[in-house]
């Protein structure tokens, strides 16, 4: 292995503390976009980004190994379905963080998905998401857009989030919508009032389209291109809980890789030169067991990978503090260890995109938790 433990962490400890004004410190006039793709079910990082430099992998999961993998460097490969990500890699616009997770080890989807969004430690305790709190801190109250029917916890914490997931039939007449607005106001229904205001003020770009991931990601590019529109988009992809028949180059997990790649492709093509002011980042609640199970699938685990793309990345790299796959290096002798607190990646990403000082985010978004700063290693600042 080329990457040795701890070597890369040292620089990040020397970050200067900058006091807590609630304003962007390096405010730029450029509109920067952050796109989150939530991979629900627990993404198998070892299939998305296999560690070719570690001979142990074969021993644990002979049925799940990729036949044709893309080689990223001497240690890591890439799933063949992630071909757009590979194109971007060649342009210096794709990165992977490997052996990473939120600090949650109990392996429940629901608790894990709650924490990957809230950024907290105790499931269901926090009622807002780290991205929502980040937007609040940056005074970007109406910048969030979810490409799903419900509002993800991730974006909660600001008053006016929007979501887009087009219905088939038409809205009632405007005068009736206005009457409903008055009814909500009259009844002091603050939440409903906020929502109906967002509905009334929807931009023209938020019309048409359908509910497929393909259409949603194309539509999202258009909405993000609006200089006054949202700058955050959150996608949900489900189905990563591959307990059985996970497949390798083809199969269940491969189909999911293709969906991720399609979203990235549509955003890359749709955003055009604005892709350079964009960061795409994946979330997942946990990784999966290193060893395959009886049904050629994998169980809930711990460490996984974060896939990133966009011009706001510093360069193409696999950023990792590789823990190794020997049984005694695994978490509870079964899962890939997480050596990088994913919250540090999230915080560094919003530091770069929202032009906020890392320390401010650490303090106001992550309750001063002990999270490392990777901003300079990973992102353009």
């Amino acid at each position, binding site marked *: 292995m080329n990457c040795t433990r701890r070597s890369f962490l040292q620089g990040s400890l020397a970050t200067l503390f900058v006091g807590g004004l609630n304003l962007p410190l390096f405010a730029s006039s450029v509109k920067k976009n952050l796109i989150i793709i939530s991979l*629900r079910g627990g993404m198998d990082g070892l299939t998305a980004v296999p560690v070719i430099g570690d001979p142990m992998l074969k021993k644990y999961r*002979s*049925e799940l190994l990729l036949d044709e993998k893309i080689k990223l460097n001497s240690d890591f490969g890439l799933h063949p379905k992630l071909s757009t990500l590979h194109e971007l890699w060649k342009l210096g616009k794709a990165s992977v963080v490997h052996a990473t997770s939120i600090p949650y080890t*109990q*392996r*429940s*989807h*629901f*608790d894990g998905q709650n924490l990957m969004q809230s950024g907290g430690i105790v*499931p269901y305790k926090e*009622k807002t998401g780290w991205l929502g709190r980040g937007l609040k801190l940056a005074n970007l109250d109406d910048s969030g857009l*979810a490409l799903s*029917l*419900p*509002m993800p916890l991730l974006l*909660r914490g600001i008053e006016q*989030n*929007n*979501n*887009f*997931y087009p*219905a*088939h*039939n*038409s*809205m*009632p*007449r405007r005068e*009736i*919508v206005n*009457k*409903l607005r008055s*009814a*909500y106001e009259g*009844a002091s*229904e603050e*939440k*409903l009032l906020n*929502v*109906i205001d*967002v*509905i009334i003020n*929807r931009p023209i770009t938020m019309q048409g389209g359908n509910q497929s991931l393909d259409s949603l990601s194309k539509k999202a590019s258009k909405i993000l291109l609006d200089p006054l529109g949202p700058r955050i988009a959150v996608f949900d992809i*489900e189905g990563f809980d591959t*307990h*059985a028949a996970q497949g390798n180059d083809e199969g269940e997990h491969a189909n999911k890789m293709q969906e991720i790649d399609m979203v990235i492709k549509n955003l890359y093509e749709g955003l055009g030169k604005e892709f350079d002011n964009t960061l795409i980042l994946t979330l997942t609640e946990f990784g999966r067991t290193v060893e*395959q*199970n*009886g*049904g050629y*699938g994998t*169980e*809930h685990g711990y460490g996984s990978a974060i896939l990133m793309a966009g011009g706001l990345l510093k360069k193409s790299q696999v950023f990792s503090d590789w823990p190794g796959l020997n049984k005694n290096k695994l978490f*509870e002798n079964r899962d890939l260890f997480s050596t990088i607190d994913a919250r540090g990646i999230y915080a560094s990403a919003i530091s770069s995109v929202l032009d906020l000082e890392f320390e401010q985010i650490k303090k106001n978004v992550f309750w001063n938790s002990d999270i490392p700063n990777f901003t300079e290693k990973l992102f353009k600042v």
Partner: protein
Amino acid sequence: MSSYFRKVGFGLAKNDEIPNDPLIWATNQFDNYHDLIWSEKLPTVEDQREKFRQFIYEDEKLRKRFRKNRMEYETEKNKLRAQTGEKFFEPFELSIRHHNALHNGVPAFERMWHFWGNHFSLSDKDFLSSWHYGPYMREVIRPSMDKTFEEMVVEVTTSWAMIHHLDNSENIGPNSIQGKRENSDGDKRKVGLNENHARELLELHTVSPASGYNQADVIDMARVLTGWGKKWSKKNLWAGPIGFQPERHDMGQKTILGKTYNSKNNKITGNKQLFAVIKDLCNHASCREFVAKKLCQHFVTDEPSQDMINPIIQAWLKSDGFLPDIHKATMKVAFEYGNKYKKFLMPETWLIQNAKMLNFKHYWGPDKFVFIAGRRPAKREKKIQWILEDLGHPVFRASQPNGFIDKEDEWTSPELIIRRMVYANQFQSYLKGIKKENRSLYNNEFYEKIIYKNFDNPENVLKLVLSANTTQNRFVMFANIPEVLKV
């Protein structure tokens, strides 16, 4: 307390009699078990499993036969879908569900049925919504409502649908007879534990994470569950019946939440072990607390207080978990706290309440809804499924095993609120079965009648609804005012 009829039921229609005592009206519904009303004989779990078996068995043959011809394969596959009712039974079962909610006279009982179906939710995978969710609701969940919670958990845990849903057939003891054999026979296929069912049994169905179980508990729970699975055969493939297969069961001692099973003092082994563990889980304080809280959350408020939960726990303790008593206690809590707390309704309940109060008869499909092998469901038959999907609440297709989350924040995104407006705007089309001359029944007097029956602040509600001018616009107003969205 006029809103109570909506709080625990679906509201009163224009010609319904107003019950004298709302609380007694509600609790009486749990004195007896209520069968579903439906004109035709309903398909059983076994009937539907046979159709599923036919589907996967014939599909495998088609795959081989049309290996090289994708188009022909798709054509034949569509015929097979129609032959086995793959697209038919979801709207069929939804129609039964909505027909009963509206017309069988025990709306509180139906609400409770919906609640348990969501507590023990199946999620959208492997054709569960096509053939299995309906019979699971009718034959596993519903009859259990007349038993104890423990009996309900046993029924659910050993049901075909839940075992299929949570992969327990792939949960094989590595030290079992079959496990040892398969792991030492030289071929690469290895078998082992699958924790999926074990984890959800603890987390979602019974004690919840608040009980403090850890990974070792989950592993031992999975070991207890080994052996329970579908019986595979060449003919049945993975649609075989559920049974306990001792050769797959992981023998030896297990410890769950501090209690040891199959030890010197506790010699419960084999298939009986699961029943013993479920008994202990259901008698755990965290289980009562968790379920009582969920009941309050469904009927009263997103954030119930301990005072609200306690009477349900008391009823549980006193009756040894007898569900009709727990249901009655819940009705009482909803009655006592009903004036002070409002609950944002999930879309399906909201839709049924609107249909009840506004007297829509045909939104859920035709009166005659009979499966004929080979016939594809008509558009009007599938309508109910599409409506629920578009409202964000396809009740048989939860995306995850924790079902639909019963909290306001889950249901108030702009797009979800748009859907309610869009569908209320469509309500007019549900009048299709009604003769033209009867449509004029939606006059001021109609609204006065239903609003005085169903709302605690009728003057205000009536004023809001009548402020809209057409039949269509009044539907939109009525369905989306705060008093209808929340009760």
